[in-house]
């Protein structure tokens, strides 16, 4: 099948610390999990490569500390990566390693190509701005200047994520965790981004709110054909959302495949433990 990925990640690397000759080799006795006992460097993301295809949901699972969120933050330019290449197949961007672009160009990508939903809504929302103001902020950043159209779009989005419109002017700090998460999703969708990153979006939500967030994500995928990277430590969430998944451990990809294959025929020792632990 000759498909072009919308997002290509190649040999992504992120380390905290300078590194030393001992930890260049990841099989070295000095490296404990992803920590170098000799120089104290943490190798948070090690040689991660994957492709994301148009309209697909890619799941990323792994225990906490496995590097999932660090990787997403790197892709979203929240933090600089140590090494690696990221290519986005969009007009004007194809063929450029976006990690090397200027900060202005990166901002353009964040505002027009990417959407991000953080695990903690504090990172994605201004808690003391109105909800609709939060959404407008992203649209203004993308160059929209028409108040009427922004308001209309904002209301439409809030309605889509089931936030009652009478509360549109309220600040997210007054909202429950699930509602904050949904305002974040509305904000992330406001510019119709072709690529959406979701970091543990259902963690900490009760089952019924979790179901409505999952339903919303599925609906977005079905109707808007947005490509998504969904990070979660919850295998049940990944099973519901993703056709393909990646399993990370100690900053590395240890297994990738069809989600049902990973769950029913896990190959790696760690993935087997993970699946045996499934409730």
């Amino acid at each position: 099948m000759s498909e072009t990925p919308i997002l290509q990640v190649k040999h992504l690397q992120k380390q905290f610390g300078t590194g030393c000759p001992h930890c260049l080799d990841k099989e070295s006795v000095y490296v404990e999990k992803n920590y170098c006992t000799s120089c104290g460097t943490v190798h948070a993301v090690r040689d991660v490569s994957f492709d994301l295809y148009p309209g697909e949901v890619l799941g990323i699972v792994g225990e906490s500390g496995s590097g999932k969120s660090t990787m997403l933050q790197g892709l979203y330019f929240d933090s600089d990566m140590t090494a690696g290449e990221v290519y986005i197949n969009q007009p004007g961007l194809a063929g450029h390693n976006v990690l090397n672009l200027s900060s202005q160009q990166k901002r353009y990508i964040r505002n027009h190509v990417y959407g991000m939903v953080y695990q903690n809504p504090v990172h994605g929302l201004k808690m003391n701005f109105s909800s609709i103001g939060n959404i407008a902020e992203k649209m203004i950043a993308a160059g929209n200047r028409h108040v009427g159209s922004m308001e209309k779009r904002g209301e439409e989005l809030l309605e889509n994520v089931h936030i009652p419109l009478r509360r549109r002017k309220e600040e997210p700090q007054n909202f429950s965790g699930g509602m904050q998460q949904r305002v974040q999703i509305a904000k992330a969708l406001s510019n119709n981004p072709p690529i959406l990153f979701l970091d543990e979006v259902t963690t900490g939500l009760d089952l019924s709110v979790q179901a409505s967030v999952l339903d919303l994500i599925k609906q977005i995928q079905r109707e808007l054909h947005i490509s998504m990277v969904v990070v979660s430590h919850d295998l049940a969430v990944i099973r519901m959302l993703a056709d393909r998944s990646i399993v990370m451990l100690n900053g590395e990809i240890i297994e990738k495949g069809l989600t049902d294959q990973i769950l029913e025929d896990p190959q790696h020792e760690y993935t087997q433990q993970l699946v045996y632990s499934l409730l």
Partner: protein
Amino acid sequence: MTMLEVNGLCKAFTIHHLNKTIPAVDEIQFSVHAGEFLGIIGKSGSGKSTILKSIYRTYLSNAGQIIYDSKQFGKIDLIQASEREIIFLRKNEIGYVSQFLNVMPRTTCRELVQNALLEMGETKETARIETEKALSYFEMDEGLWDSYPNTFSGGEKLRLNIAMATVKKPRLLLLDEPTASLDQQSKWKVREMIEKLKQQGTTLVGIFHDIEFMEGLCDKVFDMKSNEMSVVLEGVPHES
């Protein structure tokens, strides 16, 4: 025309914490023509489901070939095919029904069947009409159409499961004991549906523990015990 050809299929499971490899199936060989129904028989634990799951790529095979004649890709080895190709085939050509229903929470019965069609690119209107047809066909009580399947009875869940798979009119349908907990009348409905699909040219590979159910329905039988395929002329050989 050969629709599915399995050659020398081997599958073993490596269990790391036991430091052990458990063989499941060895050197499986059979082929199915378009519009035929191959029944797989054998004791429980003999590897019947392993074969179906290997075809569907839920299991990664260790050796062999599974050549499927795809509408989209032509002849394709399902063991070697890319993940994206398998996902495409699952959405558009190959169906799988088991006795378990595993679906999105808080999604109604109607939405589930509709989504299966929308996924294939059908229009909303077609999806709506076909869904209602399928649900009435499998005699799902209309009162259940807009409720959530979590609270359904075993039989209702199964019928929904079969409706979701058959509404897509797959070219190849894998049936993993889908009638296990159905009453006689519902089983009869499933049988009727299978006959209908066969007439439309769907190729089927199925496991049923109910030998009588398979009688007159299968064109061929693969016996796990002898590792052999036989052509059914009259009835189905009984398990010894």
